[in-house]
């Protein structure tokens, strides 16, 4: 399945939900996920189904002023 994550088109296999995507990417930190323009609460990762061409933003906090 082709997804646009953080501005880049990427191919993913065997993933159905946002939770799957995060597991596949191996992310173990505090993040926020936006799925097709909707910010997801943590408890909705497992139920948010991904479809071909979906757009995701995965953001985190960094140092800033």
């Amino acid at each position, binding site marked *: 399945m082709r997804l646009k994550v953080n501005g880049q088109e990427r191919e993913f296999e065997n993933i159905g939900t946002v939770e799957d995507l995060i597991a596949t990417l191996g992310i173990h930190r505090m993040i926020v996920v936006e799925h097709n323009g909707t910010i997801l609460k943590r408890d909705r990762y497992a139920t948010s189904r991904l479809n071909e061409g979906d757009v995701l933003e995965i*953001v985190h906090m960094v140092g800033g002023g």
Partner: protein
Amino acid sequence: MVGGQSDDVLVIAGKEFRSRLIMGSGKFPDPETMNRAYEAAGTEMITVALRRLNLDDPNEKTLLDYIDWSRYAILPNTAGARTAEEAIHTARLARAMGLSDWIKLEVIPDPKYLLPDPIGTLEAAKVLVKEGFVVLPYINDDPILAKHLEEIGCATVMPLAAPIGSGQGLVNYSQIQIIIEQANVPVVVDAGIGAPSDAALAMEIGSSACLINSAIALAKDPVGMAKAMAMGVAAGREAYRAGRMARKAYASASSPLEGIVGR
């Protein structure tokens, strides 16, 4: 740590702070130095930015992973936003982190001087205040804009002393004085401070706090400078409360004029 008077509390949106120095978390050479700087300064609030995760190394540590967030209030900013829309978007993402509904609002279309857009900032502030954010807008030295932002419910106004990261000091002194004179919310001088004398001056004219990043993080010794800045802020605050003498055009002797020997 450098403390203020125990009875002199800064209140922003109902939250109390003893320290009047808000610090950034950008540009520090390493996490140890950063943490020691926070400690030396006794700061109580730290700004952070929001960025896309690097998917190629998603668990790479950032400076922020080393901060003990039980000790400091976190103030996410919207840095990077060029329009009201982008700033609102970033603010919502920041709040979804679950750490804070406070937002340092920056709407900056211009990459060279990093000056904020008065129109976009007011527009974004209106939306964010309505959505329940505690909004701390970064603004140019415009007293009328400051008044508008206060009126629509911003928690502070944060005029810039000079362009971000320039270290030029209180270049906008004159109009920041007017902003302070007319404000009913705390005025936080944000950006441009280069040395403790700048911070002290900002506080002497009645600012409620200073937000400093570059001048500390880029000092040769950031820990020493953090302490110096905290002392400068505290000195200026103390002087504001103590009531400075009036400036005089002429001199006035410190020693008595009578009883001079041999005259």
